[in-house]
């Protein structure tokens, strides 16, 4: 343990004194304050905060990721290249201890810098409202939609498979299917029909209503607020692009089953533009004690169009589930996991590759991981023609890559969404405990058996 620590501290000294880390630190020290002053977003306080935190964290994450890759590779390859390792590895230290020491050093350095800079971002974000002359409404908006960690509930999925099945059978019987869906594979036809049926369930004609029922609505503060967030799609755009609506939020069962004594449903009347996210606030007490909540939407007869709530994010119920601080810490943890993975990856690459090659490989993998969603989707799409080869080889390799884009902290912090501990734990298990550990084990095995000395005759 002592020798691991000796190697670790030496690694940190190396990174700092060889000015590798210093460049990154300088960049951040300069860029963060500049960002804090220059970002404006959409000229509201909330927009400004969102832009700053999003860009600040992304920049910190990007630079520290690069630093993790570069330092972890540099520190091992330079020792082998410049042969300081001859005098180190012949001391009473096992090879795995040497490598672990290197990794520990890199991680300590990265963790330290991450804590430093995320603390700076946090402080700047928290103090921004005090130093800007924002209107009260903007302060409230920032408080409700940014300095919070809101849980978002989407309406439960509607099962339309039987309807789709029947519709297809009907089409096949009548023989229309060939004409209507010419040139489409059965899979695509099913997908299209499913989409249509689902949208139908989320559209309301003029004078009609829609009802969504939610479970597990448990706001942190029962005297606080719930938020309903929505976006309209319309079949005919109204002249003023506005949709008139009436809403009822609360325990619908008391009307449905004639129960007595509950909190009455909360009525809301609104006029909102189409195709834009809007949200309104209702008191949290309207949610039933067992976590039940219903949202009724009534398409006002003043309208001339039927209203559709898009599938992905047409309607959500939001409520504050945790504080901004806790959410921010979890977001930083996600970045830390990334760094651990990349440090392990760099260590592995450095055990058998020279510096430039290892850097190239790691950067390629890093950028692939950063757009992994796209990569996986496109490969899945392409793979239909080469299923067997793909699904047994490449697919698993791609799955081995971590999905940095999927677990991007900004996607949670910018809209003030709850980043739950369970998600953090899942990322920890998959990205660190499985993938990073696997890389580390490979690195240790390779390093333990390789020849350290260069071949000189």
């Amino acid at each position, binding site marked *: 343990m002592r020798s691991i620590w000796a190697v670790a501290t030496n690694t940190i000294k190396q990174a700092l004194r060889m000015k590798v880390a210093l460049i990154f630190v300088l960049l951040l020290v300069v860029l963060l304050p500049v960002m804090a002053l220059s970002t404006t977003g959409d000229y509201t306080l909330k927009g400004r905060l969102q832009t700053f935190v999003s860009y600040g964290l992304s920049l910190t994450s990007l630079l520290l990721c690069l630093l993790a890759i570069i330092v972890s590779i540099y520190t091992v390859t330079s020792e082998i290249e410049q042969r300081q390792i*001859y005098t180190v590895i012949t*001391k009473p230290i096992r090879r795995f201890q040497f490598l672990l020491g290197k990794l520990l050093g890199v991680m300590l350095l990265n963790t330290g810098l991450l804590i430093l800079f995320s603390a700076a971002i946090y402080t700047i974000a928290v103090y921004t409202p005090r130093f800007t002359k924002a209107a009260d409404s903007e302060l409230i908006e920032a408080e409700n939609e940014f300095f919070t960690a809101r849980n978002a509930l989407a309406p439960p999925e509607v099962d339309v498979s039987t309807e789709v099945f029947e519709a297809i059978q009907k089409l096949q019987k009548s023989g229309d299917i060939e004409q209507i869906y010419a040139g489409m594979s059965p899979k695509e036809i099913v997908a299209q029909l499913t989409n249509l049926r689902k949208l139908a369930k989320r559209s309301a004609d003029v004078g009609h209503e829609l009802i969504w029922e939610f479970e597990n609505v448990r706001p942190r503060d029962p005297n606080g607020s719930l938020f309903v967030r929505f976006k309209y799609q319309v079949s005919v755009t109204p002249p003023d692009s506005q949709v008139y609506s009436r809403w009822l939020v609360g325990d619908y069962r008391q009307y449905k089953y004639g129960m007595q004594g509950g909190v009455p449903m909360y009525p809301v009347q609104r006029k909102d533009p189409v195709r834009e996210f809007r949200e309104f606030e209702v008191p949290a007490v309207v949610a039933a004690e067992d976590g039940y909540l219903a949202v009724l939407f009534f398409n006002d007869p003043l309208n001339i169009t039927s209203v559709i709530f898009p599938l992905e994010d047409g309607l959500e119920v939001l409520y504050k589930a945790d504080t901004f601080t806790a959410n921010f810490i979890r977001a930083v943890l996600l970045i830390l996991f990334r760094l651990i993975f990349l440090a392990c990856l760099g260590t592995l690459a450095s055990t058998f590759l020279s510096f430039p090659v290892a850097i190239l490989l790691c950067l390629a993998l890093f950028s692939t991981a950063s757009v992994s969603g796209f990569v996986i989707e496109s490969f899945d799409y392409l793979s239909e023609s080469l299923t067997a080869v793909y699904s047994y080889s490449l697919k698993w390799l791609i799955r081995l890559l971590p999905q940095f884009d999927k677990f991007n902290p900004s996607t949670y912090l910018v809209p003030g969404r709850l980043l739950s501990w369970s998600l953090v734990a899942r990322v920890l298990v998959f990205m660190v405990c499985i993938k990073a550990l696997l890389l580390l084990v490979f690195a240790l095995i390779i390093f333990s058996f390789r020849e350290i000395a260069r071949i000189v*005759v």
Partner: protein
Amino acid sequence: MEYAVETFSLTKIFSDWWGRAKVYAVDDLNLQVQRNEVFGLLGPNGSGKTTALKMLLGLLHPTKGKAICLGGDATDPKISARIGFLPEESYLYRYLTARETLDFYGRLFGLDRQVRKMRIEALLDMVGLKAVANRPVGTFSKGMARRIGLAQALINDPDLLILDEPTTGLDPIGTRQIKDLVLKLAKRGKTVLLCSHLLADVEDVCDRIAILYGGKIQAKGQVKDLLQQTHKRQITTDAISDSAVEKIKQIVRLENAECVVSSPMHKLETFFIDTVVAAQRQAQRTSGAVSTTKIGDFLTRETVSENILDKLVSTPLSQGPPAERAPTEKVVPAETAEPKPDERLLGKLAEPAQPQPVVADAKPGTKPVETSVPEQKLVKKDVLDELAGRSQPKTEDPGQTDKPYAGDSGDA
């Protein structure tokens, strides 16, 4: 009997990309280095000396064969804790200062802070870099870097010292110092394996040598046996008169032999050192390494080694009468500044005021990998001499002294 270093048909073949054998760097090398011996591995450039050392230390894997250091694998921490290694060039961390460098290596050995500190100061003093101890080693000249490399190899007070071209880049004083050091260590029962192509160095210090060419041993044996010209005799006298020389020549002629008479030359080395020492006495300033002929305090006396013999040989600072204590010429300034724990240790070592016969019976070394019988006799003789010389009056703590001694002589 167990050797300090032993190789069994050690072979290293470097193959090309296709796996075809290309070069036999080391070919079927069988080497035995006895304990407490200074062994020189000689050979021209590219004869496989360094490759052999690297296989010994586990930096390269042998294609065939096996190498054993101190009775085990050199990559085993228990073994490598007792080895000091100086590679063919000093590969140092350029961003660390001299002191930090040594501290780092000391920590790799798991040495305590105080032991580390004491040894680092002693070593810096010995290699003459105390004045530049806080300068990054990246700014050092080759010779200065070499000195740090040497200090690094000695920080654990190794039982086996492996030196690869120890004198390259060093000035004559440094070279001389290394030679002195090697001899001192050998006297203390350590083993030194050095490889070099500077023949003069090897000749001065080595007990046995092996000459390597093309990865194979071409000759090996005692230096004396190999070099002595048995068909010639040399007589050295004080400056005698010409008439006396004539007489000697006549006697030689009677034996039917030829005789050449001349005044012996000083070795250039001796002359050089004398000159520099004289300059130093006039306190000339230098920005380089301060050349000293000191040898690290703990290397010659202080004993953290497990070996009870080493402990006995060493002298406690607090107790030994100074006249007897100092081995010979070197008085090291660091000695008075030694920290407390070491004094404690030394006190423990100050041990037995045993009557001589008891000591004579004792056979040291319950430690599994310690020295084997013949060398022990050699060393023990020294011990006995030293004990007889100075340990008689020291019986302050008889209860304490008996115990560890009895324990260590268990297999007598």
